[in-house]
């Protein structure tokens, strides 16, 4: 990590460690789950240039698997989340394998359509509980030691998972593998001509992203002790796009900031019902028209070193 990133990262950790003494832990955990989800999504859209409109499939189905295995099979939470991650990765392998056959907006439409299969499966399958979802999921004890019923125990577990996921994404982006991903984003035919099998790189990035989305979804189902259809719906795929866009596509901290902004907004506007949708749509429009670099992208563009900020579209 360069100096600026390291300082920002340490400040973020310090803030998040202290936060539950000031703010409501469940709210913070929701932010962290969505921040991890958005980081996973950003790995794909920000660094490979693949816009998935079906990430709710991984997030939501992992939530169901974690909730089901913890509640019905009595698995410990760490195994439940692990199975959620495996579910996300496995689904990511299938959906990614199909979707990388097409580029650009076709990729977006295909991921969206395939995620609808997962959604309708969740509606019809008996074990997902239909409209009710899987309710009162026990949080249990992490490794048999940490009592997750206690808010702080749960909070620091979620924080640890989030930081692990965040650092993993950082590591991936700054590895030789990540360099190839960025090369694909900038110019895929040229990357192919350099001898890289871009499809394999894209698929692996897709699976990693889906796996992390699965970790986020599984964790969220433990935090709220609930897995429901909300998390597999296409609206959820739209929300994670919005969070990443607001924070800044292709920036390390953007998805975290975006998730915090959108979750806070949803919290304050919850009583206004469908106004939330209208305002979210409005933010989409404003971001696309005037604010394409997002919050973090704009800050980096103004104050960061030259060339640090992503360009925000334009081919």
């Amino acid at each position: 990590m360069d100096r600026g990133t390291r300082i920002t990262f340490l400040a973020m950790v310090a803030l998040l460690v202290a936060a539950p003494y000031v703010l409501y832990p469940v709210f913070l955990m929701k932010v962290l789950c969505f921040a991890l989800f958005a980081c996973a999504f950003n790995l794909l859209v920000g660094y490979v240039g693949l816009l998935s409109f079906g990430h709710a499939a991984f997030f939501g189905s992992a939530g169901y698997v974690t909730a089901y295995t913890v509640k019905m099979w009595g698995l410990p939470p760490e195994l439940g989340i692990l199975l959620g991650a495996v579910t996300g990765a496995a689904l990511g392998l299938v959906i990614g394998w199909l979707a990388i056959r097409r580029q650009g907006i076709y990729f977006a439409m295909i991921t969206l359509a395939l995620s609808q299969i997962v959604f309708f499966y969740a509606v019809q399958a008996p074990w997902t509980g239909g409209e009710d979802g899987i309710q009162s999921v026990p949080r249990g004890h992490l490794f048999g030691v940490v009592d997750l019923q206690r808010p702080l125990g749960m909070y620091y577990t979620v924080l640890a998972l989030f930081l692990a996921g965040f650092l993993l994404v950082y590591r991936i982006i700054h590895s030789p593998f990540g360099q190839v991903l960025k090369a694909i984003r900038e110019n895929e035919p040229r990357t192919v001509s350099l001898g890289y099998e871009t499809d394999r790189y894209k698929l692996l990035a897709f699976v990693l992203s889906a796996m992390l989305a699965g970790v986020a979804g599984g964790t969220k189902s433990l935090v709220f002790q609930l897995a429901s259809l909300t998390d597999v719906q296409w609206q959820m795929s739209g929300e994670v796009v919005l969070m990443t866009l607001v924070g800044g596509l292709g920036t390390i901290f953007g998805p975290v900031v975006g998730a915090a902004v959108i979750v806070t907004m949803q919290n304050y506007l919850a009583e206004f019902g469908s106004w939330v949708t209208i305002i979210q749509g409005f933010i989409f429009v404003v971001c696309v028209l005037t604010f394409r670099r997002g919050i973090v992208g704009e800050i980096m563009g103004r104050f960061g070193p030259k060339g640090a900020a992503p360009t925000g579209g334009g081919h």
Partner: protein
Amino acid sequence: MFELLGIPPQALFGQLLIGLINGAFYAMLSLGLAVIFGLLNIINFTHGAQYMMGAFVAYLSLTHLGLAYWWALLLAPIAVGLFGILLERTMLHRLYKLDHLYGLLLTFGLALIVEGFFRNQYGSSGLPYSIPAELRGGYNLGFMFLPTYRAWVVVASVIVCFGTWFVIERTKLGAYLRAATENPTLVQAFGVNVPRMVTLTYGFGVALAAFAGVMAAPIYQVSPLMGANLIIVVFAVVVIGGMGSILGAIVTGFGLGVIEGLTKVFYPEASNTVIFVIMAIVLTIKPAGLFGRAT
């Protein structure tokens, strides 16, 4: 009465008809998407919302202005088409030089705004819209009962689809359009006002969605979210057909509607997902789509 594979013919033909009707809507909507995509390189996520607006124009003009179905069929495409032109002039045209994904994100946001607005005003439950008097009743064909309105929907949508095909493939205006799809700079150099053509094309595609919305109003109930789930199915239809060909969009739309109808008869559990599954299969065999050119 004879039976086919253990299914009474009434049920079979009934579902086939429903499939054909759904297919008519898939065809009209995917046609509009394909026309817009061809010239603007934008996938119009607002298409479903504009279809819904068409149905609402029909509903509101009947309840508030007392204008009957036939007026709505004329008014809705004009009104919603103008709304589309406004969107194109104020917002979409700023995005043509950017990555195509921004067009998708912008129209997605617009769809959320429009659908949220209608949900605020009219709630999420469906509003009834009755079949116009001229098209009530039906014919007894011996093996099934054919409601007049449903026959009208199939016939009218076939006419509209082939009319669009004719204009694009067989007239001079269509030739300009196809040329501009291939190379807008060159066509502009020949003195054709391409930006205006782009605007009108978007307006036309949107008007087509609104027309479909009016046709749908008496069949499905008029509700703010009627287009939201439909548009995703239409996306799958577009991926299956490929957007390179107008005729391809029409044939794929009708064909998939019929397949979906048959699925309802033989394996109802899969009727929601069959089109997505077909899309997955087509992607493994012919990634560019049945009628598409490789991108």
